[in-house]
């Protein structure tokens, strides 16, 4: 697919000698979004980490805008166009909010002013150190910092985990806004309903392999795959309307 933003073919990766994901293949076009679903331990985060060069790569091909990157160091992948908001947030504790943003700055439309306007809670705490922020604020900062790299593709690893409902609502609206502005992203999220509402495409992983690949709407229309591989109890775990 000549126009694909991200192309992943036959990727196999893990840690040490352990293979965690195997024969992973999918593609995303510019501005598209993908939800990665599955039970705990199936390899969702490993997939994200593999894209970022943080696992042991064992085979396959990965390319972004036609450029192969499976052998590039992590910082070079960021320069290529991958932006990552990790599950553990990874906020730099001894840097202020503004510094957390500035160290990640790359040329492009996203800058500190625009992001602080998007996240007023961060703007109010711009001089605070990273370890002085609440969980929700740290998550906002993690997303903002990823956007400061002006990525072609944003990787969001469980951005809503452990947050209060009001913060979940705020971040969901932010992600929806990013999608509306054409920012492509891959979303790993345990909140299946929210994930399917935010991303147009979805894959389900089971024991490190893809067992479903298609549209989010297809999963909503027939939740049997979700029941079988994600652990949902059925349609009652999905709201009637979850399309973005």
């Amino acid at each position: 697919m000549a126009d694909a933003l991200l192309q992943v073919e036959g990727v196999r990766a893990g840690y040490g000698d352990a293979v965690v994901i195997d024969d992973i293949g999918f593609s995303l076009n510019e501005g598209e979004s993908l939800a990665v679903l599955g039970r705990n331990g199936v390899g969702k985060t490993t997939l994200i980490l593999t894209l970022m060069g943080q696992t042991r790569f064992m085979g396959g091909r990965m390319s972004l805008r036609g450029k192969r990157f499976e052998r590039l160091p992590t910082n070079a992948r960021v320069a290529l166009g991958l932006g990552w908001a990790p599950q553990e947030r990874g906020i730099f504790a001894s840097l202020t909010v503004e510094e957390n943003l500035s160290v990640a700055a790359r040329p492009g439309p996203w800058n500190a002013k625009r992001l602080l306007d998007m996240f007023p809670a961060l703007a109010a705490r711009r001089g605070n150190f990273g370890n002085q922020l609440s969980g929700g604020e740290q998550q906002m900062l993690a997303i903002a910092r990823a956007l400061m790299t002006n990525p072609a593709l944003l990787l969001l690893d469980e951005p809503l985990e452990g947050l209060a409902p009001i913060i979940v609502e705020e971040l969901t609206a932010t992600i929806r806004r990013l999608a509306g502005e054409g920012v492509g992203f891959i979303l790993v999220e345990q909140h299946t309903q929210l994930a399917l509402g935010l991303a147009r495409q979805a894959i389900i992983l089971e024991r490190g392999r893809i067992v479903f690949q298609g549209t989010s709407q297809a999963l909503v229309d027939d939740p049997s795959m979700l029941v079988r591989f994600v652990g949902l109890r059925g349609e009652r775990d999905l709201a009637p309307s979850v399309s973005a």
Partner: protein
Amino acid sequence: MGDFLSTWLALTFNGIAFGMILFLISSGLTVTLGVMRLVNLSHCGFAMIGGYIAMAAVDYLGFGLLASIPVALLGTMVIAAIIERTLFQWTYGITELGQILMTFGLTLVMVALCNIIFGPLLHALPVPNWLTGNFQGGGIVISVYRCFLIVISGLIAVGIWYVVERTDFGARLRASVDNPRMARCAGINVRQIFSLTFTVGCGLAAVGGVLGTQMLPLEPFYALDYLILTLIVVATGGLGSLKGSFCAALLIGVIDTWGRYILPAGGGFVMYAIVLVVLLARPQGLFARA
């Protein structure tokens, strides 16, 4: 009582001057040891190299002490950069024992080379005439050169603080210190940051080596003689903490100076004893990173 006070003030002043030199020499080591997790036992060797380069500039090129400082700084940084790119890159990621053996071996090579080139005698770089003599007032006698040392070292310390706390490079260094993995994932070339910091740290050690020859005279075993002191400064201050190194260096400088006055036959015993107490109370050091 006046004599007692003036003696203790003079000792404290001399101790601060000594501590400043220790800080300059140790500042680079706190980053390499505390952050890059590189056990670099050859760090004092770069202070020694800087001192000898300055001595060569003074003896063979007719430079004065102050003019020899940039020569020593740049020369040592070039040597450090070459060694880092050729030898040290093989030590990243190996066991600590491997790093100890490699860097200790490098120290022995430095010692041998300096012995061959410059001989075994002690050397102290000549101080310019305008920095000789003493300030006297209120019964206190203070060396002009030690005043100069404190001022210059203080300015360098302020410069280090400014670069680390107020510049983009410093922010990227602090990010790399906090979380190297996340720093890479934010697009920071951590390897490059650490290499540059290592090189500059060796340069600072060289400046300390040049300025401190009146207190730490140059001789081939310099790299081994003062290694323990610098390791103590880093450990007491807290690995990876420049603020900690600064405070620990001043504390150790003052305590060592007082200790040698109180108990001349004991050498550095007083200082070692106090450091032992500090580390028993705070094994992580005074200002360990969170």
